[in-house]
């Protein structure tokens, strides 16, 4: 048995099988979330490529699976990423029912993860573009709300993600040609432009970001957050693969500086635009833009600390987006609105939604005591040691997002009425909603207080990328 079969092939098969039973949602939810947790735990426990004993049996899980001359290689250090993807998906799927997601979410979601992991493991890497595209195509039905019209955001999502494919394929070709070219420096540069554009489309980097808030506000925030979390995590790991493989990328100052500049633009863009938003669902989009900005800055640092922060940022990001999107989805289900003007004093009606929203947003913003604070501080610390200008700009983005946090506090905690009539707590969430929101909020708090938890989980991931630093 090989690891790619267990963590790519079987989940894909299961997703096909459960697709036929997708109408039976409770069963599917238990089945798929349980299966995802199982895959996650197994990935954490079992070492790939090593013989281990299971009672009287001795088993070995090979790292490689070859098909049509192409290999899928799931290295031992990558199992933590696999575990993270499946574990977070497990939690995501388990709250599918209260989020108002459609029937395609679970089967398609599982298939999306298996394709994204396939993209991470396939050799040669240019096939990754094709797997990601298939994942994108599979994700479209999940994003459309049952009985509602097709939205512009979803179409834009499809367009921009598809536009990435040619650029990645061309980059793969150009990087292969460059060492043999008479003007290899130029060829490398061209390859990096192709690659940059490909990743820019994938990660919705400025100016390809416009679809992000559009999809976020178009009805399925929970599914959207799942999708962008999974895609961005996979793509960022893939980018590490590129940097690990091509020394030219690591050593080209112009490229690295460009990445830092674009990252800073995204942080400022995400933070400042978030500060002026009127709808909660759009905040998920800007949170993503803001977060990707920080990831790009981490990549641009290219030191060991930079790569470490990139890896460590996955867990708080995924969980904060999960909590934020769940609270927005529940809010939409319960009150049919997520306009800030219409949810004044929400805390007194729905304290769980309010607290979860605040916690998630402040985690994303980087408030001290919450999960992403140490990561953002580390990035700022690294940047500040070389440039105060970048530091100031990033701080502007940070202040923008914290300002939005302040606005959220004033909206959620300040009653809409001048008297104290509705200042008494009347919990309107259902038990299931309260339980899920509480559990996920607690995860955020724990991540903030004990960041060493995610360090200990993710610390070995970098072992696969020995050339990076």
């Amino acid at each position: 048995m090989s690891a790619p079969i267990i963590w790519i092939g079987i989940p894909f098969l299961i997703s096909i099988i459960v697709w036929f039973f997708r109408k039976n949602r409770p069963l599917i939810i238990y089945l798929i979330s349980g299966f995802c947790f199982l895959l996650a735990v197994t990935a954490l426990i079992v070492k790939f490529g090593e013989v281990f004993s299971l009672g009287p049996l001795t088993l070995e899980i090979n790292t490689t699976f070859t098909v049509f001359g192409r290999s899928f290689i799931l290295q031992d250090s990558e199992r933590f990423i696999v575990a993270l993807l499946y574990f977070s998906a497990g939690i995501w799927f388990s709250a599918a029912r209260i989020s108002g997601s459609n029937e395609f979410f679970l089967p398609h979601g599982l298939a999306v993860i298996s394709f994204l992991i396939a993209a991470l493991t396939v050799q040669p890497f240019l096939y990754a573009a094709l797997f990601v595209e298939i994942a994108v195509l599979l994700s479209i039905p999940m994003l459309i709300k049952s009985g509602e019209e097709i939205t512009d955001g979803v179409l834009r999502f499809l367009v921009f993600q598809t536009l990435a494919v040619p650029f990645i394929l061309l980059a793969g070709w150009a990087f292969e040609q460059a060492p043999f070219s008479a003007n290899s420096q130029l060829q490398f540069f061209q390859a990096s432009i192709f690659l940059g554009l490909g990743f820019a489309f994938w990660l919705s980097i400025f100016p390809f970001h416009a679809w992000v808030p559009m999809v976020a506000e178009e009805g399925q925030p929970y599914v959207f957050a799942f999708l962008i979390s999974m895609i961005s995590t996979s793509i960022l790991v893939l980018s590490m693969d590129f940097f690990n493989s091509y020394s030219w990328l690591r050593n080209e100052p112009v490229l690295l500086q460009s990445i830092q500049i674009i990252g800073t633009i995204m942080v400022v863009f995400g933070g400042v635009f978030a500060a002026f938003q009127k709808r909660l669902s759009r905040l998920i989009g800007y949170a993503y833009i803001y977060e990707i900005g920080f990831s790009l800055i981490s990549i641009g640092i290219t030191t060991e600390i930079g790569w470490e922060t990139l890896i460590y940022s996955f867990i708080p990001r995924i969980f904060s987006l999960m909590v934020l999107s769940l609270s927005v989805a529940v809010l939409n289900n319960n009150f049919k609105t997520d306009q800030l003007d219409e949810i004044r004093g929400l805390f007194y009606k729905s304290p769980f939604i309010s607290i979860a929203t605040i916690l998630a947003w402040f985690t994303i913003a980087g408030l001290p005591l919450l999960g992403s604070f140490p990561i953002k501080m580390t990035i700022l610390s690294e940047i500040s040691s070389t440039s105060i200008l970048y530091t100031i700009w990033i701080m502007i983005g940070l202040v923008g997002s914290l300002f939005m946090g302040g606005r959220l506090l004033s909206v959620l905690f300040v009653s809409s009425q001048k008297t104290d009539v509705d200042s008494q707590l009347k919990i309107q969430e259902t038990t299931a909603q309260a339980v899920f929101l509480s559990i996920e909020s607690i995860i955020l708090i724990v991540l903030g207080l004990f960041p060493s938890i995610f360090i200990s989980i993710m610390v070995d991931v970098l072992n696969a990328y020995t050339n990076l630093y």
Partner: protein
Amino acid sequence: MIALTPFILLVFAAILILVLNQIKINLGRLWLIAMVFSLLNWGLVLILYWFMPFTFTINNWFSVSNIFQTGFSFTLNQYSWIYLFSLSAVFLAVIMSESTRITEDYQAQNWVASFLIAAIGVLISVSDSILTIILVWTVIDLVEFGVILGTVKTQKQSLETVLSFVVRLGGTVLLIFAALYSNYINGYFDFGSVPFNIGFVLLISVGLRLGVLPFNLPYMKEIPLRRGLGIIIRMTSVVSSIVVINRFVLISNAESNYHLIQIFVTLAIAAGSILWVVSKNELEGRPFWIIVLSGFVIESLINGYPTAAIAWSLVLLLTGSVLFLFSDRSKWLFILPAISILSMIGLPFTPNAIGLSGLIGDNLIFTLTNLSACFVLIFGYLRFALKPAKNLESNERWVWLVYPLGLVLLIVTHFIVFFITDLNWIILGPLWISIPILVLSIVVVFFNQRVKTENQYSAWARVFSERLSASVSTFLRFDWLYKILWGIFQFFQSILNNLSGILEGHGGIIWVLVLVALLITLVSPKGIQ
């Protein structure tokens, strides 16, 4: 770990009271337990003085970045001990004064909250690294936000609570920026000596949290939690900021000095002192007391008197708490605030003799404003202390002893700190200031008694002071400024929404392609070569 023993003790006490309250123990007994623990805490901190210093560090909290290399660091040394001891005295006094309010609702919950906040106060006092300070600031801000939000009743008060939290958060962000700026200049962050640029940001950061820089009053009226828990929250929050600036040694010279900051601080001091003296009572005036004395702390630091800054901090905490806890009064009990204020007047060889020196700087206008404000502050203090209030004798007899004892403890603590610490502050002080202030204060007390008897004047004075207070505070609360800022916010909001509309609208993809073409042109190989 010894540095954190008071923290452990207080948390244990909080849990114990919570559990005992759940099993319906008599409230009087609960109070007794609370008092015993707060007394134990006070005694423990006092004893720790002779065994200092202690340091406790947690290095591997997030061992990735340089900025976190020191991790969490808690140090109990002479400086942190002063604040720790003062806070424990305030806490003890609060619990003892609770004897007059035992029968009020939710007292047990309030005591639990008080113990937890006091425990956070321990962390604040002994925090010794930038990371610890940032996190502890956030903890106290969140706790204050939660506790106050739980007690306010109106929309306006809720909004003020949020605004207060946001302003404090702004202070924390500025502290983070100061740390990063320091990292840029020095390659590390150090409390030891702070260059002008960083000191400037730090002072604004702390000033913002204290309401001094710029003068800001998020709360139109004082919070509903007036005495008891209210005092603990307020004082702990103040200490969290003051303890930070007292660690810095600000470096300034002729070219780079803190005149700009001094202008704002002096303005805040002047405005705060006026608002203090015209306030209805000491609790209404509490924010101004904090602002003015925090201003004195900053002025002392800028003038190069770190010890004076500590002296003013003690006045803020201990002298202030005597008045704020002075809820039940009797004729003879006035002696307690009177003794307490003596330590503020700065008579020779009293705790604040050095404090007055800190207010004297190079600039005559600043100095005169500071000294005038100091006098106004004392005047207001005496005015409030002399006001009639609930009679102590209306309480049970044992309260007659316990309640004043709490106030005495604050005064005693002030003198204990003054005499046992070795900060070279037992000095003569500027007699040309302290003596006139003393004389003026006596005159004020005398006249105050006279005015009281003449109703016509007192009524006029009351109306005048109320109107002055209302108009000055309306102007100084910067409501007009907030309206302008709101207008600017809406202007930017419309611009950004239009920009989003363009990118997300019908021709969005074309715009994106244009932008990409532009970007590629900018980074074309020709440009690189």
